[in-house]
């Protein structure tokens, strides 16, 4: 899978959100290319990661389900989407 994937995490800020997500990605050989993160309106956590699944273990669907489960565990919403959806919408 050569496509880049965008992982977004939104929700109430808490300790260790990035650690949890990064640990999962490292365990599954998913390479992080870029991370940006902001806190909106006091404690609203908003993170975007660009990752490369070239050597990833497991399928895309498994990753999406696993990250969704991690999100539920720490009380945030984690979603994964192929980068092309944003490219097509925002670039001519």
């Amino acid at each position: 899978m050569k496509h880049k994937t965008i992982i977004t995490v939104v929700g109430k800020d808490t300790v260790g959100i990035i650690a949890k997500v990064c640990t999962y990605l490292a365990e599954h050989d998913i390479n992080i290319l870029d991370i940006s993160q902001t806190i909106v309106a006091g404690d609203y956590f908003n993170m975007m990661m660009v990752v490369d699944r070239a050597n990833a273990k497991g399928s895309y669907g498994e990753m999406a389900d696993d990250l969704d489960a991690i999100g539920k565990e720490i009380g945030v919403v984690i979603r994964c989407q192929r980068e092309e959806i944003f490219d097509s919408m925002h670039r001519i």
Partner: protein
Amino acid sequence: MISQYEVIETNEMVEKENLDVRTITIGISLLDCIDSDLEKTKSKIHDKILRITEKQVETADYIEKEYGIPIVNKRISVTPIALIGGASCKTEEDFASIAKTLDDVAKEVGVNFIGGYSALVSKAQTPADELLIRSIPQALATTERVCSSINLGSTRCGINMDGVRLMGETIKATAEATKEDDSLGCAKLVVFCNAPDDNPFMAGAFHGVTEGDAVINVGVSGPGVVRTALQKVRGESFEVLCETIKKTAFKVTRVGQLVAKEASRMLDIPFGIVDLSLAPTPAIGDSVADILCEIGLEHPGAPGTTAALALLNDQVKKGGVMASSYVGGLSGAFIPVSEDQGMIDAVTAGALTIEKLEAMTSVCSVGLDMIAIPGDTSASSISGIIADEMAIGMINGKTTAVRVIPVIGKGVGETVEFGGLLGYAPIMPVSAFGCDAFISRKGRIPAPIHSFKN
């Protein structure tokens, strides 16, 4: 590089504003299934549809997951069955048994609707066309997922008034045949003028005879996205208003184009068109009527409605057309009543009448759609409504349609519940004045003067 702001914008469209791909529809030619033996015809139809669409639902689910964009419906459209069954069907029951085959295969592959129980009779009907039309009440009463459409006129051919008369009777008969379910059969039956060959939306989808063996057509939707964008430019000039609609329509259509291309690649079926429509659902906020209100109307139906809708429809096309390599189908703003909470509210408030809706259909993408009328409306009045709508389509060179539901046993002031995407509707009054003598004339209305372009 995509910015965080852009990612958030896209995800908000999906999560809060109901952006979705409304349907991935696979069009299939059944011309090679024609056989003089009915059983062989049916088995060929079943096998071909199954072979081509076997992976449709699975593929759509996969794309939905990878891109994080909901794909609400998976559907199939086929060559008009009047052409396919003509060689083998001798009775109405024969035709209805093909509808059963379509219904069975739709259930087998897991699509929610299959369109193409259709006849194209814009000038006149063959005996097979007429047999199919007469079988519609039985076909729709004995199937769940089959949709039927009849093309009764075109700018090139004029209006087949014999067909219009027959369809008035057929709609009434379908209502009677499905009266136990609030005449639900009529919600799956539509008549057209200038029907497109590549429409992915139900109930009017069929696979035109000019199309290839199989094709993927995608319908996008996002009235909520347009409305939210317009909320941010409240009070601004028409220039700003129109630019905002165009930009939003562009973004929405790009999603459809991406999904269509990906589905085409994965299923190895050519990409046909993206239908860039604003199609509402009964979900709150997923409403075309709400956009009209945001443009500045108290309710759809108020003076100014036709102008506001014309503007909306045109800007949606202008924005969407550059976003996709092939645009087709119905493309524009749909104004079904029962499927749009804002339209239902307008009817309930007394703002919207069938006559105003008729005016609106001269500038929107389709026609009188999902309108519940009293069950005792006469067949000739229904034919009259159809004839008016066909005339608007014929003269203006646009697609128009009628999907009215005469709800047997119910009258004005009552409400009918269709469920799911079809929604619910207050029953609207129809003019009490008759048109029997007009409808009982035989023959057809000639093609208009501007059809002679050669």
